[in-house]
């Protein structure tokens, strides 16, 4: 796979703006108008299944905060593109051009939130105006999926209607339209990291969710992360808006990386020390760490799990803010819990289990709203753990 030809630093930092007539890379958008989320999710899942020759495709659609799942859909193999129910999006050429290539039998893969943007661009033929749809991405996804199942995470950049919709639960999202916001650089970044590392060397990937304005880090050049002077690792920020994500490749063991990140979250270490060349006002609000060989093997799995963990951490932090009114459900508030990895996840599952048991022991019945909320949260934690174990091969 070559991933250097279509590199464009501005692309990773801005939402797509495909419907704009000008071919400005910084303002390409894919707008979804007058279409329900279910239709959008179904269409995308069908498109990807056909495009990549997959047996199945599961698509997770998140809200613009990239924290709340608003739709899940899955499809089996779709071999006839004419059967795809088109939705009123601007037509692209990438789908028809690439769909003829058959998939190979094999396993499954999950692509994380930000990486899916490239696939979206391929589907609509809009990733790089004037160039052919990105064959590198298609080859990568096909190679990773090997014709098995593909799980995609896609985010809505902005919910349609008023902002209150974003806080609503799943049913109220029906009929909402918005634009997708995804970023293409994670896969190529991590592929580079894995390529440049000895087979038994440590590759620790950290995803940081940032608050505050300002760009940080150096963008990768031709798919390779740029080292920053005096920094512990290499990394760059994705986007400039709130809740943007920074990707950091740390040349440390997982334990050491987690320890440094905890110092960072506690304010004892600056972001500049970690990643270099940062804007001082940018600060991390949550972090997720995964380790190659220790946690997982393979770029796709690492990205998928790191993305899961970061979304989970964001969700937990949001819950913690909400729960200040209800101390019985209060989550761990120390800095250690703000860095999510497989160990913290396991501890959090145990802790939430105990909170649930305590609530029931205190007299709450199974219909109680608090019990249901804890149960939903626990379910989500368990699903991420099971998905992680699935990437390890421990879950069928």
């Amino acid at each position, binding site marked *: 796979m070559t991933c250097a030809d279509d590199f464009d630093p501005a692309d990773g930092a801005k939402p797509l703006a495909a419907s704009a007539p000008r071919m400005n890379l910084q303002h390409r958008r894919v707008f979804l108008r007058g279409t329900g989320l279910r239709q959008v999710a179904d269409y995308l899942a069908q498109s990807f299944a056909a495009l990549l020759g997959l047996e199945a495709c*599961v698509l997770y659609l998140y809200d613009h905060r990239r924290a709340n799942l608003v739709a*899940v859909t899955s499809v089996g193999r779709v071999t006839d593109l004419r059967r795809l129910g088109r939705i009123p999006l601007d037509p692209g050429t990438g789908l028809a051009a690439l769909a003829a290539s058959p998939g190979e039998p094999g396993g499954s893969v999950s692509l994380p939130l930000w990486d899916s943007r490239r696939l979206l661009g391929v589907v609509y033929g809009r990733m790089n105006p004037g160039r052919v749809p990105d064959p590198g991405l298609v080859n990568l996804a096909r190679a990773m999926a090997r014709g098995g199942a593909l799980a995609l995470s896609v985010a809505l950049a902005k919910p349609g209607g008023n902002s209150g919709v974003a806080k609503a639960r799943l049913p109220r999202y029906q009929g909402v339209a918005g634009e997708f916001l995804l970023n293409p650089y994670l896969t190529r970044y991590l592929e580079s990291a894995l390529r440049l590392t000895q087979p038994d060397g440590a590759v620790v990937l950290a995803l940081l969710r940032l608050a505050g304005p300002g760009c940080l880090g150096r963008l990768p050049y031709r798919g390779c992360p740029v080292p920053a002077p005096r920094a512990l690792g290499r990394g760059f920020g994705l986007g400039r808006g709130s809740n943007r994500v920074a990707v950091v490749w740390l040349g440390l063991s997982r334990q050491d990386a987690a320890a440094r990140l905890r110092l960072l979250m506690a304010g004892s270490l600056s972001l500049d020390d970690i990643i270099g060349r940062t804007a001082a006002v940018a600060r991390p609000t949550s972090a997720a760490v995964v380790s190659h060989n220790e946690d997982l093997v393979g770029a796709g799995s690492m990205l998928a799990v790191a993305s899961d963990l970061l979304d989970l951490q964001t969700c937990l932090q949001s819950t913690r803010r909400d729960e200040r009114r209800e101390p019985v459900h209060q989550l761990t508030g120390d800095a250690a819990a703000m860095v999510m990895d497989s160990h913290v996840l396991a501890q959090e*599952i145990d802790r939430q289990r105990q909170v*649930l*048991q305590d609530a029931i022991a205190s007299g709450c019945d199974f219909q109680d709203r608090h019990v249901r909320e804890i*149960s939903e949260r*626990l379910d989500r934690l368990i699903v991420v753990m099971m*998905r992680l*174990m699935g990437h390890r091969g421990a879950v069928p």
Partner: protein
Amino acid sequence: MAVVGSDNVEASARPLIFVVEPNPFMAEMERSILRSYAVEFLSPETVVRAAVSRRPDLIIAEIVLRGRDGLALCRELKARPETAAIPFLVFSVVDAAAEAAEAGADAFLLKPSERNALAPEVRRLIGPPRSHGREATP
């Protein structure tokens, strides 16, 4: 369920499992784990009527449900002669094995965090997907 025609043998030979699971994340995970079976997700309100009319091979339910809890669901299904023989597996985040047994459940599983136990338990209750009794008529 009698099936005519060999084309339908494989699909109908797969055991039918009804799942009552309120969480979409978990539902998707269960669908993935049980992909070798014919799995249908139902609400607590519809599962009883569906079980009476279609006689699934297994019912899996969470305890914490909106409307009525999984244990009440289990009690009702076990009290009905048409559905009493259908194995009922409680698959829950709540550690309530004793309550599940008291409600008549055939098995209880705490939703796992370290390893998957669902598929083996389903196999134990109703057998592997391919060797099940829902066969085509000769």
